[in-house]
């Protein structure tokens, strides 16, 4: 506690006034995970705060230095676990860049579909939980069932729901089956209606507006200086989106707008996320059309047998496949030397992979640029002078995911 006490900053003329120290977390439901905020309160108003993180630190970077490239994918699942496929595919794109693998267009479009579904899943949980934090539970119930539907689509594609481990270096493990596409169609048909209903419930709701407008604001300049990216930066008025600025996986083929806010407060962040869900639906629809127009309707991975794990059936009957399978699993195929920074637009912002390869089967150094870790340090500044209830909705709207914070 002594260290936290050093960070209490009382207002200038109020030295005599007694303040109360409030420990918000580390296992408080309002902290949405495991991080502690020690807040100094003057009545209902926050005088200063101090954030402590690291409760679930799992040394991913150290583990990654000892694992072959394809085995690092499960580590990325556990960063922002609300949208793990984006992390998986982001990692695969980084390794593909290192190995010089070019994926077929069909793989790119399928990846775009998966990533945008993941973005919807990420945003819908953030926004609906924001509703719960303001006292409205029904919005959460409306949307949560669609998160289940997204899980079911992932289940068809890769067999897993939360820690998806979707895909491989070079493409997907298997082709999407018809059920996956059918489930996707149902989702695309039903979700807009629910999202519209959700918006009607909140965006012009008097109580919701009173609770969120001007709660936890941050200016564009401060947000940039703090390293904000993603919806939190866009809500402050800067239209930076990795998908537009540095397109990957064929994002340059899609038409979509990047929503921006003006004040950078909780309400703006909510609106930006809502609009992004509409844009993601738009992108998925375009991707499905493009898939239909493609001549190639079968390929789901690049033709790189030395890097892409062969199909299990083939391993039993084909000598080359068996050899490649063995070599890949035992890590006998060395990656070239190189140094790469590759970024994707994660659910929370720019998710970057800084990879140094000295040759060999494992990375020499891998650093994850986790958006949450970088912007969460602004939280105490954002809630200074605000009410405790504002601090709760601000934390909720920032969408800080503990897995990403503590990698």
């Amino acid at each position, binding site marked *: 506690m002594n260290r936290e006490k050093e960070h209490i900053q009382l207002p200038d003329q109020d030295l005599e006034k007694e303040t109360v120290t409030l420990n918000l977390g580390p296992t408080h439901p309002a902290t949405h995970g495991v991080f502690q905020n020690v807040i100094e309160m003057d009545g209902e108003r926050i005088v200063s705060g101090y954030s402590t993180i690291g409760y679930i630190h799992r040394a991913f970077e150290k583990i990654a230095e000892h694992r072959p490239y394809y085995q690092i994918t499960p580590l990325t699942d556990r960063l922002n676990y609300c949208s793990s496929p984006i992390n998986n595919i982001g990692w695969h794109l980084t390794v593909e860049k290192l190995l010089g693998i070019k994926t077929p267009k069909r793989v790119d479009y399928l990846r775009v579909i998966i990533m945008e579904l993941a973005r919807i899943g990420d945003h819908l949980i953030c926004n609906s939980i924001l509703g719960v934090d303001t006292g409205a539970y029904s919005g959460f119930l409306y949307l949560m069932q669609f998160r289940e539907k997204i899980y079911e689509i992932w289940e068809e594609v890769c067999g897993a729901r939360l820690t998806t481990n979707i895909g491989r270096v070079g493409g997907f493990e298997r082709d999407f089956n018809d059920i996956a596409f059918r489930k996707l169609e149902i989702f695309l048909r039903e979700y807009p209606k629910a999202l519209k209903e959700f918006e009607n419930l909140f965006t012009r709701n008097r109580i919701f507006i009173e609770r969120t407008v001007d709660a936890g604001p941050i200016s564009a300049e401060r947000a940039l200086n703090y390293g904000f990216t993603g919806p939190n930066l866009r809500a402050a008025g800067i239209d930076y989106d990795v998908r537009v600025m540095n397109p990957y996986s064929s994002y340059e083929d899609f038409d979509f707008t990047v929503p921006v806010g003006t004040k950078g407060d909780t309400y703006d962040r909510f609106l930006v996320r809502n609009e992004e869900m509409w844009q993601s639906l738009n992108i998925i629809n375009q991707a499905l059309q493009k898939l239909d127009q493609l001549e190639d309707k079968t390929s789901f991975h690049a033709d790189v047998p030395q890097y892409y794990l062969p199909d299990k059936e083939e391993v039993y009957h084909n000598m080359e496949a068996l050899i490649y399978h063995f070599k890949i699993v035992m890590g006998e195929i060395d990656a070239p030397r190189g140094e790469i*920074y590759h970024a994707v637009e994660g659910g929370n912002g720019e998710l970057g992979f800084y990879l140094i390869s000295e040759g060999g089967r494992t990375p020499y150094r891998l650093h994850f640029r986790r958006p949450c870790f970088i912007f969460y340090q602004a939280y105490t500044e954002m809630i200074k002078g605000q009410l405790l209830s504002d601090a709760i909705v601000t934390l909720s709207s920032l969408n800080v995911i503990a897995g990403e914070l503590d990698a």
Partner: protein
Amino acid sequence: MVDNERVLEKLKSAFGELIHSPEEPWQLLTIRTDPLHITPIIEFLSKDEELAFTFLTDLCGIHWPYRNEKFEVVYHLHSFINNIRLRIKVAIPGDQPRIPTMTNLFLAANWMERETFDFYGIIFVGHPNLVRILNVDEMTIFPLRKEYPLEDNTREDKNDEMFGRDPKLIQAGI
């Protein structure tokens, strides 16, 4: 039109020999400099109106036990206006590495530097609160340094060679 060439040209004209070994791996301009000059260089890059590297994307450390300069701090900057990224690598000599902090230029550097200190023991001179961030305060080692193996190297139930790990290198602390 600002491109890698223009960035390098401006940097060279402002700092001359202090900027060395430029490379462009995967089109990302990478330059090297030394700890003494990193602050003026990043200040120049962020304040120059044409270049406008106003965004610190990432900051992290690397350990090279076999090199003379054992530690490296890597900065990734981004100029949104020109949409150019830039990587700056600073090699730091000695077992007790020290480098100036960037917190007075970028607030984002605060936690990134704490994390780098936590994992590598690199001291960021002038940092307002350089304490461990992800690991426990009582920890005495810096775990991402290469001398700390991932697993207990006294274990005998696993044959390291079968898992692609060279026992000799593990013994040598690499």
